[in-house]
């Protein structure tokens, strides 16, 4: 159970596939338009239940409770070694063959 006033993220369907705009690619038209938004939970609730939140601008939004304290988990990703090869190409061209020594 997540407590009232906790900082949470919800998900909501804005448009069902049947309500979507015309002239969309097929793969987009067959899925709903979804929204994610964060705010303070207005009543205690479990993840997965329908809830209302108060957002930072004071708006009330409703949707399915996704999580408490949503985190920023984006990173620099798995290392891409080709980047080192780029370094070698440009340094060798500019400074000569011994730039890696």
């Amino acid at each position, binding site marked *: 159970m997540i407590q009232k006033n906790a900082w949470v993220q919800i998900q909501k369907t804005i*448009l069902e596939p049947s*309500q979507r705009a015309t002239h969309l690619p097929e793969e987009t038209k067959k*899925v709903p338009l979804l*929204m*994610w938004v964060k705010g303070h939970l207005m009543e205690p609730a479990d993840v997965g239940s329908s809830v209302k939140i108060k957002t930072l601008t004071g708006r009330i939004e409703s949707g399915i409770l996704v999580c408490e304290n949503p985190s920023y988990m984006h990173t*620099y*990703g798995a290392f891409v070694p080709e980047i080192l090869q780029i370094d070698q190409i440009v340094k060798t*061209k*500019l400074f000569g063959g011994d730039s890696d020594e």
Partner: protein
Amino acid sequence: MNNSYQAVMARKNEIMKNSVGIDYTKYEYGTLAFDYEAMMNDCGNSLQQVREIQNHFGVGNTPLKECKNLTALARSVAKPGFGARIFIKDEALNDSGSFKARRASMACYQAKRLGFKGVIAATSGNYGAAVASQAAKHGLKCIIVQECYDSFGIGQPEIIEKARACEAYGAEVVQLSVGPELFYKFLLLLEETGYFNASLYTPYGIMGIESLGAELVEDCLKQTGQYPTAVVCTNAGGGNLTGTARGILKTTDHKIQIIGASVNLKGLHMASDIDFNKKSFTTGHTGFGLPFMINPDRSDVPRSAGRPLRYIDRYVTMNQGEVFFITEALAVLEGIERGPAGNTSLAAAFSLAQEMKEDDIIIVQETEYTSAGKHHQAQLAFARENGIDIHFGDPLDEIPGKTIVFPETVDLIHTQELDLDIIRKKYIQNQLTKSKSLTQDDLDFLVIETNTDIEFVLNELKQYDIHLEVEHE
């Protein structure tokens, strides 16, 4: 109130009018013409006022830096005597990390002046952070609406980072899955909150960039004693190029070539739930650049103040692999780590410099911040996770959405030319969908909009069944 998709879209003009404080119908004349300069003047602050306002709110006056090692690298593969000096305007040093602070500063200033309690912007790019940052200074509430995830909830790392930045500046971020109906939610939010529409495409969003054009001419004269030969602008919605060119024109009569550069994303559909996470650039690409040049009024306001065809002299594309390559070169040769999208014009300048003499100057008019998610390392890792084949070879072989090809050797970095006359003709063709009956005013408008002459326009009109309400000899 009926909030169905159709009902909300039907009230969009009314919502827009209330949310930007501009009655666009006032500027319409002829059957398709509109008075662009009158719109800019009516909403306007002079260039001097823009600079004063921006100075007050900590925007602009970024350094112009010469990239001597990149210039030397370009010269190493250029013909003898060729290889212009490459400069970058380091716009990443603005609060919020990009030139978008200039656009946001004027939008937020106007919102505050008109008494709005908050601002809303529909943007997945740096502009969101810029609006959030400027709104914070003005004590305005702020909502940023992003297209962020595919339908599986997989977010583009660059857009997730921008959401973080917006939230860091105190904004509420509304994130949506892929689709142009983002505009529907955007309209609903404008109506619900009564906030100001801090669109990228109002006159405020454009006049804020004029200071950038003015600064780069002044900086260049001060540092080198000469005018830039060419200025390269990364082009998406066209506002960057438009505002920069207008600022240059307001500062000097000296002819400076305006070159637009976009990442080539040919073949990827911008509204595709599948293609969404197959591209490594979320802006500055042809998926925005071309449609907005052909129809600038497809933006989130009835008449866009970004009208690049009026100002552009040349339009080139770069492949994703080339832009990543130059982004890395900027870091290891110049010691400047910046975001990849803003470096699209740097990659173009690296190639264009080789067509120019050594005593010429080419200015790349922006850089952007980089970070987790945005960094080229992060974008390449994400591409690899999404099955994109990353390898060295000839960038011309790159297939957007399938491969990213780094140039095997430096001499393989080349701009690809887009034919502006074809784009101009498509622009005219698009205008004709609005009216098949044209007045003299409309003809004059088409000439100005396409930066051509009456012969060009009439010659193109011959191909269509058009009623001209004027006689032409």
